């Protein structure tokens, strides 16, 4: 895995000196471990796809959590990022919505409350008193903000409601923690859980979805506001047109997505509303 990880900079280096590539600075796209198996393979394939379409060098910058991606965006270290609705709303003044993935026909997703398959009595957040809870990332909407809101809605504000909670820094690991019994329950991105159910059914079968939240805007691609309108437009077009050609469709299939739409801030209004209610602005 390590050697393959180093393939990316190596590959990038080769591309940098390759003839025919423009001297324009590369486009850097930040991403977290939102998606699934074969990340390195997939990212290099996607990178190649984007470079062909853009005629520009593209670099995927992988980080362990949304916080780091946010930092890089703030420090102008990234041009674009695939982040979450929650940080997008949080840093909206400095970001522009680039594209929103379409999952199962909608640019929307939910937060699932999952418990181990062995747990047959839990039906709702309110049954979770005294349990160990797994969140994915404090900058995640579905993995932090939504469960916080659900608890708040039920009048649960005490920090001592859970016996213990922790972050796994990735949705998939929430599923793993719940499946292993390390956590009694966890909040997970519906897109991740459903995609895992297709790719790794033996993992998701150890968990049970007990509660599905309201629909929220799907984790979007965002651009730094300082990115030129040309670059913004070019990248947006490439993403929106991905489902128009077989290569793009193949990549989307691997992502278990239907395509991208331009979207608008209305998609993320409920996130903003939740943030206000929780005072997390």
């Amino acid at each position: 895995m390590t050697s393959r990880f180093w393939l990316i900079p190596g590959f990038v280096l080769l591309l940098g000196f390759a003839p025919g590539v423009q001297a324009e600075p590369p486009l850097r796209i930040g991403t977290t471990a939102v998606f699934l198996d074969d990340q390195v393979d997939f990212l290099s394939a996607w990178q190649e796809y984007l470079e062909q379409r853009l005629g520009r060098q593209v670099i995927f910058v992988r980080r362990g959590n949304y916080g780091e991606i946010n930092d890089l965006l703030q420090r102008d270290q990234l041009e674009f990022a695939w982040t979450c609705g929650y940080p997008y709303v949080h840093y909206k003044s400095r970001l522009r919505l680039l594209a929103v993935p379409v999952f199962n026909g909608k640019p929307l997703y939910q937060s699932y409350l999952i418990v181990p398959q062995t747990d047959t009595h839990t039906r709702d957040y309110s049954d979770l008193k005294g349990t160990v809870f797994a969140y994915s990332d404090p900058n995640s909407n579905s993995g932090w903000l939504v469960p916080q809101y659900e608890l708040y809605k039920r009048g649960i504000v005490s920090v001592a409601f859970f016996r213990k909670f922790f972050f796994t820094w990735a949705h998939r690991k929430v599923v793993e923690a719940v499946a292993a019994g390390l956590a009694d329950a966890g909040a997970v991105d519906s897109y991740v859980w459903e995609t895992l159910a297709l790719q790794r059914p033996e993992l998701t079968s150890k968990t049970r979805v007990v509660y599905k939240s309201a629909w929220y805007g799907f984790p979007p691609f965002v651009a730094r506001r300082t990115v030129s309108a040309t670059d913004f437009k070019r990248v947006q077009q490439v993403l929106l047109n991905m489902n128009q050609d077989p290569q793009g469709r193949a990549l989307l299939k691997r992502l278990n997505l239907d395509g991208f739409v331009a979207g608008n801030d209305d998609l993320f209004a409920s996130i903003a509303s939740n943030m206000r209610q929780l005072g997390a602005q």
Partner: protein
Amino acid sequence: MKLRDLSYRYKIPISFILVSVLVVLAVSTTLAMQAYQNAHRDLIANAEGLGKSLGRALTPMILRDDVWSAYQTVITPLGASAEELALRDLVVLDTQGRIYVASDPRRFPVARDLATPGGGYNRLLNTVQQNRNDAAQVVENEEYPELFVAVPILNDGDRLGTLILIYSKAVFLSRLYGAIGRVLGITGALLVVLLPLGWYWGRRMAKPLLHLTECVGQVGSVPADAIECNLDMGDDEIGRLGSRFKAMLEQLKEKQALEREMARANRLAAIGRIAAGIAHEVNNPLGGMLNAVSTLKRHGHPDPFTAKTVSLLERGLLQIKDIVGALLVEARLESHPLTPQDVEDMRTLLTADIRGKILHFSWKNRLNEPVPLPSTLVRQILINLLLNATQAVREHGRIECRVWRESGSLWLEVANDGRHIGERQMEHLFEPFAEAHEHGAGLGLWLVHQIVQQLNGNIRVESMPGRTQFSVTLPLGGDHADQLEIATVPH
């Protein structure tokens, strides 16, 4: 049966086998103990090493309160080699003794007291909590089917918690039993070789002792002469015992031979006394009766019938006189010293007998001057021995006679190649009437014996198939000259 009564035939091999078994057992036990201690030491060393490196890795995670990373860290060692290592669980406790994270969260749920699950770990928790030491701690208690190694998790000397590595004793023990099994297998194979070898050596070692015991056991039940034993058994203790026993056996044989000889001599003496007594008592009235018969014949003028009867009486009485005279070897006669010619006369006397049987007769008379011994008695000895010899030989047989003077004695030697004298005959050879047969009453050798006794001489008989020899030694210079005795020999 007591052990001490057991034969060395079994005792020595059994000892060998016992020693082999004991040695093998001792070696097995030692090796097994060694294997156990090694396995135990290795396990503890491994556990401490693993615990320390895991502890270092866990420190930043605990500081960040990153339960998920801590979980991923503690499940790492439980890979494919976990079965081999017998490592079953890893548990991280926080400073309060609560479970921070564990490799099996269902068994050890996060943020619960370690003491809670099953209630079995209270003592472990107490032991671990009481340990304020920074060193790893091994908790091995019969109460638990597991072995625990507790390693403190430290950050700049502050204790963040404790990592407990839980090892299954069963897996550990099964590995140990495997090692013991292998040791036993090897030593068992060794025993299979050692036991028959031990049995064989033991039997071999006991063999001379058993042989000696058997030989000694024969003493008393079998005559010493009849004990047939090979007692050349080397120079070890049993060998020396054997040669000592051999010497004792020889002495016993000599003693028994001497006793037999004495018994024979005593018997002969007793017979001699009885014979002499009877002969003497018979002799007096016999003399009177012969006188009376003589007187009657000379002066009685008996009628022919009476004369015939008297003559019969006289012949009978004379025969009695002969026999009595033979028994009573004390009739004293004037006798001149023995001359070479006296000896030669014996040869002449025998000529008729020798011709009758066509014998080879070897005659060696080495005397060339008179010998101071009563000639009558010596002639008597010689003629009796020679007559016996001619009777013993078959036709074409051989008789040897040697007479010589040597170192103050006269030596007479008569040998023949006829029937030899059997052992039973030899026992009573010189007794009167012992050998009565068609040629005589059996008084010849008795007479010879008596004469030799009176002359302070010695008679020896050697008889084996093919050669029978009588050797007589008569010392010279005695005072026999005036004590000459004579006996008539009835043949």
